[in-house]
């Protein structure tokens, strides 16, 4: 299961944090700080996995992260997730963001937190991976965006016919 998804920039400013397990507000902030502390001091040429810090649950948990220019994408997962699988999931997430925002940048994440959350919700639901296909995720998100105009809209899924 995925326990938390964190995005912060090179200075440790949180850009998105989604916890699938309950922590207090303070703990969440501490986790973000600790994670940033752990991740930021790693070189570019080392592996993308880290053993979990103290706060988020110790040795059962793993941090899997990718660094894109100014942003760190960190997934905190337990032992039931595949490390490399999650690594590619981050890639799918970023590519999806890129498609949805047409060349995504840090500011998109700041100004459209709600949209990013919605995209994420189509990909990971309650800590479980729901969808890994970028096109399918975008279809769902678009369908919801169109809702604004027509409440009776029945959305189309690319896989609807199967």
């Amino acid at each position, binding site marked *: 299961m995925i326990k938390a998804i964190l995005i912060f920039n090179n200075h440790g400013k949180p850009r998105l944090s989604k916890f699938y397990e309950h922590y207090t507000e303070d703990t969440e902030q501490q986790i973000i700080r600790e994670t940033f502390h752990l991740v930021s001091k790693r070189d570019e040429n080392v592996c993308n996995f880290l053993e979990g810090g*103290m706060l988020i649950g110790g040795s059962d948990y793993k941090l899997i992260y990718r660094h894109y220019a100014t942003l760190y994408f960190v997934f905190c997962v337990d032992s*039931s997730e*595949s490390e490399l699988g999650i690594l590619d999931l981050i890639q799918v997430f970023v590519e999806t963001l*890129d498609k949805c925002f047409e*060349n995504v940048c*840090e500011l998109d994440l700041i100004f459209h937190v709600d949209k990013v959350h*919605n995209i994420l*919700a189509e990909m990971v639901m*309650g800590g479980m991976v729901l969808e890994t296909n970028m096109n399918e995720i975008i279809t769902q998100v678009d369908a919801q965006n169109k809702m604004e105009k027509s409440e009776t809209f029945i959305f189309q899924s690319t896989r609807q016919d199967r």
Partner: protein
Amino acid sequence: MSYVGEKTLTALPSLLSLDSQPGPAKLSSTSKLGNLIRGITELTSKHEEEKLIQRELESIKEQVSSPNTSMRQMKELMVRAIYCESLGYEASFVYIHAIKLAQQGTALEKRVGYLAVSLFLNESHELLLLLVNTVLKDLQSTNLIEVCMALTVVSQIFPKEMIPAILPLVEEKLNHPKEIIRRKAVLALYKFYLIAPNQVQHIHNKFRKALCDKDPGVMTASLHIYLQMIQENPEGYKDLTGSFVNILKQVVGGKLPIDFNYHSVPAPWLQIHLLRILSFLGKNDLRTSELIYEVLDESLRRAEMNRNITYAILYECVKCIYTIHPKSNLLEKAAKCIGNFVLSPDINLKYLGLKALTYVIQQDPKMALQHQMTIIECLDHPDLIIKRETLELLFRITNAQNVVVIVEKMLEFLQNSPDDYTTIDLVGKVAELAEKYAPDNEWFIETMNTVFSLGGDTMQPDIPNSFLKLLSEGFDSVEEDRKLRLFAVDSYVSLLQGETRKLPQCFLQVISWVLGEYSHLSEDHNRSTVLRLLEKLLDMKQTSSETKCWILMAMTKLCEGTAGVCVAQQVSETYISSMDTVLRQRAQELQHLSQDSELREEVLPRDSGLDPMEIDSSLSFLDEFVSGALAAGAAPYKPPHQRQEELAEAKVLSLEPYGLALPISMSSCSITDRHSPTPLSMSSGLSGDSTDVSHRAGLKLDGVQRVWGRDGYLAKKESVEEAAPVQGLTPVHSPSLQNEGDGSHSQTPTPTPTPEPDREKEQLASSLFFGVSSQSSVCLMGKPDSTFNRRRKAKVQAPGVTEQLSSSVAPVSNAVDNLLCNNLQDSNINSVSAASSKQTCELSPRVPAANGTCNTDCGLPESDRKRSNLSISRDNGLVDADSALSEDQGSRSDLCPSSYLPAELCGLYRSEIAPLCTAHSLELSACHVHQGDDMILIIFISNSSDSQVLQIRLDLKSEQLKVTCVSDSSVENIKSHTVAVYQYSLAVKRPGVDVEVDGTLSFLLPAGTPQTKHFSYKLPLTAFIRPLLISTEEYGTMWLGFSHEVKQNLTLVDDGCEPLTFTLNLLKNRLQLHLVEIIGLEGILACRLLQNQPCLMHCRVHAGALAVWLRSPVPELPDCLVYHCQRVLQEK
């Protein structure tokens, strides 16, 4: 692989200077959020940011509470609030508005509302109850988007108690025509399963339907559930193996639509999931594994593309191959894969390769040898994570021969250890290795010194605890003990003579205890020297007052002779007026005891550490006082949580069914043991309080607990011993210690570095892997080889032959167990039938008949009361059948276990004899017998071959049960055509719905080859449930004292007239409960879990259902019992 994100994100810095550039229109930099964000980026200090956000929150607060704010504006405000919260500022005033937005907004606003709710609130937040109706409404909406949103929020946060309210609606969605809805519904149900497994019990069939869904997406979602359930109970899902294999075959074969491909690999995440599931199913199961081999081979073959994601699949394959029953050609391929991983230049793959190697090495230590040079290289890898993983690997292959080198490597790493987490973990590991394999006293003490000084005060308290315990309890030989202690004393004295300022407090505490206790052993140092050193410690300003207490204690033990008394007086005068009460008390003690040496001898006797101290954990000596106080009108004691609860309840409705009865004597009910000391109290004894007496009490407390559990005293000790190091920490060499090691003491030689780096590495390799190759005696984690278990051996050898056990299950036995405990009268019939069904169907007409009963009831508690009457009438017949059976078999020289049942157990209720496993000519079967308050597990080993089987050893262990061997003669050799019987007594340690015993059978074939075989035996918790005969008054008193509770609604079984009475009687008969009383629409039942752990049940008819409320002092018990109740009633 595309790194699109990387490319685009680099454009950011230019965008950040918003003023100069309009930026893309989508950035809506004119909005209020835009202003806020711009404002924040311009700030320079944290303080300014705080002020700005506070102002922002004020303005949000004002606007949200204004009645004129439209939903559209509210949505915008909500986004701003989310932004503030994400920066760590609390905006609790908007929570209620978020819920309102979710309730009243249009779809898009609703979405923001739901999002805000799921970000702001948690499962236990009280406002969440207000959301339930909204969710209900949205789940019924015709708008699919709304349904989707509701399902999403449900899987993120939903109050556990309210699940029943929406469960039917979510279930309904499993049949929804849209796949996305079905998919989300499956995940929502999985979430329910995780937080309240009992409530989704009844829909397991629907999960199967989801697994067979025509849409692969829904099937994928259902795998989450299966992965979890199979991990918990692989036996229950073996029948699905074929389906999973088929699915995987189709996926690997590319039968899925093309849009499931990722980088042209078909549904990789799905494959990973399936491989995980298969490895759980095939674990220790040859038959299932055989089904899996082919598809594994196929997966390995197909996954040879050079992509990141295919490596993920390969890695899962490898893990699966090493988890299931081994097959040589697959193992070869897997080994090759691991080789590729480890040697890969890609650092992520190297990491995973090491992980895989660590895993594999537990089964095949030779793998480490193949890759030894790579491992050595990884030890020097610049990436700390890789280094750590390598150490983890080495930790697994440590044995008595290479422990010195490996521990040295670990300590070296620790010197530069980057973070607390790593330090704690490694320190524990070093301590564990040192305790297990220390080659000699000097090395052990020195390593532990390093552990203490590097681990410092962050390490877990059980390391110093178990170290001191080890010193005080000693080993086999008195002489050896004396040497160890003496060495410790010498080493500490010289340590204290050096620089002491940097030593962590917990190390100082250890030192003072050891010096106080054992410095009399040393002839080189007289007491006054030691006293003076301790005094010096007291004067240091770094010393904490807790440590000072320890030091004063030590001084109390040492102050002999005029010089000693003089120092003691001086010191005690300083501290006697301390502000710290504990410290003051120690000073008082020191003062008085130093003056009165006779009293001191009595209070602090020397070398009495081994006499067990009687501790009355029930505090029964206070009974008189308590009953006196109660009689005088004092209120009975209530634990804090209950007081709070009652306070809360007082405000609402009083649901408490029974008034408080008069005080009854505590001993009449078995609740006295609920405050039994846990291992935790041991640490508090050590750290909080340092009188010698209390310290010893601390050490002995676990002994008391053991006694309390009615096990052998030593059995427990063993478990404590094992537990401590597992969680332990890791040690490091402090500079001072190393000096000492090099100088005054001859440290165990470590490989001398030669100038050539390569030779150095080879040498290192040979010392690291020494002993790994030699034989299978490598001590793997989890099954330490006793020969090397030097430091612990002494304790493990227990007089009361307490075997540690464990085992697993056949579904048949499970079913039978249920039969057994629900209707004991039936058990004899069933037990015979199962045992004999295979071999002797034709034996007597009665046996097949009984057999039929058994089969039809398989898996479910027998439900029909009539049947139980019937079986009573059959009971007599059964004996005939039994004897007829054995006679008949005798003449055929067939081996029927039931005829070997020990005489004293014949005629008692017992379960069917279920086959466990076969190994060559040996057949194992087992049953459990109810002998009064004891549960006896009987294992039969029958040898059907013509030759004798030698050196039979049976090891049982279980996490949930305490298993004690009761048969006094342990049979080692079994002659041909005979049956050996082993008896074990079982007691529940940790209740679960079912409890399991795992076992290992090892024996020598006639040819001389050693063999081992694993098996397991499962029995339901109900086998351990007995009625608890108490009155309503006693019930009332006990009810208030129990802290763990579960409430749930169950189906009411209606027989026409008295549904409550009927249902309760049904439960009573099936589960062996005691029906205390039925009053109107309420009824109370009581039972106890062997030995003497009570559970109380209160039932009330409410809206056509049975509202049950269970309480018990044991955390898991109510939950398990409610599960069994549910099953009984569902049967009906």
